[in-house]
């Protein structure tokens, strides 16, 4: 009525849609966007898990292979602390293999520490930590997973980021934030301190 009075010469044609139809369109569009977003998120998460798992398995396989080789050649290992152990008597020219760890970063130094023959690095995914635990007759290389309740730096590795914690777990959840572990058991020598 008002429109006809304001625009007398213009035909009263409807533009746009009815309100329920617009609502239905918004609903369907929202569903499409939500499902598409969820799908994308799942694909990206799966890709990240695949990369982390691949890095872990590659590093673990290399580490175990080298540890067993050193164990076979040397016969026994001695853990000086939770972050250092050594295989003595590898061979005349190779001398001693010293293993050091700093959270998820493990280093193997062959020969004299001041002038090593070779160095080799093993970098675990972010959040992992490695320690050498001495038990009666064995030395256990314990690889702990990061906590599922902690968000670690995505760049990821024990090398560069040194597995720094970005968001620490809340105090209330610390008990449940203990990650799982992997153990490699090696024949121990004279036994070190734990």
């Amino acid at each position: 009525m008002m429109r006809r009075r304001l625009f007398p010469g213009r035909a009263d044609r409807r533009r746009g849609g009815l309100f329920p139809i617009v609502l239905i369109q918004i609903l369907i569009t929202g569903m499409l966007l939500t499902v598409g977003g969820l799908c994308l998120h799942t694909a990206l998460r799966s890709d990240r898990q695949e990369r982390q798992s691949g890095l872990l398995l590659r590093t673990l396989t290399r580490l175990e292979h080298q540890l067993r080789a050193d164990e076979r050649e040397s016969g026994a290992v001695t853990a000086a602390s939770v972050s250092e152990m050594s295989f003595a008597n590898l061979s005349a020219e190779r001398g001693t293999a010293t293993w050091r760890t700093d959270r998820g970063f493990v280093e193997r130094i062959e020969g004299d520490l001041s002038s090593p023959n070779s160095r080799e690095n093993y970098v675990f995914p972010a959040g992992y930590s490695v320690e050498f635990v001495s038990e009666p007759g064995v030395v256990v290389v314990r690889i702990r997973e990061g906590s599922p309740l902690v968000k670690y730096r995505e760049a990821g590795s024990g090398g560069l980021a040194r597995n720094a914690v970005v968001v620490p777990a809340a105090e209330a959840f610390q008990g449940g934030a203990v990650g799982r572990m992997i153990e490699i058991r090696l024949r121990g020598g004279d036994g070190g301190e734990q």
Partner: protein
Amino acid sequence: MLRPFIMNTDMPLLSRRRGLLNIELLVAAAVLGMAISLLLPGMQAASRVRQARQFEVLARVELNNLRSAAEAAATPQLSAWFLTRYPDAELSISAVPGSELWPAGAGVRLSISRPETDRGRAAPVSLVFWPVSGGRSGATP
């Protein structure tokens, strides 16, 4: 340039259209649904393969640990860390008779399997070693 956006009753229908028809939205939803129904099984399969690969690597680590225990004359048992990850895992120990190819004597076969989840997905992982000679040993999937 702006002609298609000017309301003109003389222009053909397509050039006057604005927005989407409901049926087009529904078709888009159906296409997206089909894409997801193809994508999800693929991602689940990739996840299963990843888990099977992880089980195989960890089982090899555990078998090498058990081999050291067996050579030290202890009865091999699955470790707590492995059982925490795979509570359904089972260890089996069997003797491997000596043969012409390997006359060193009887060997020991250690096998870790997951009966509940195997069903053609994750094959048991085995390690055969000869404790007397202590020389050669090998892991077989």
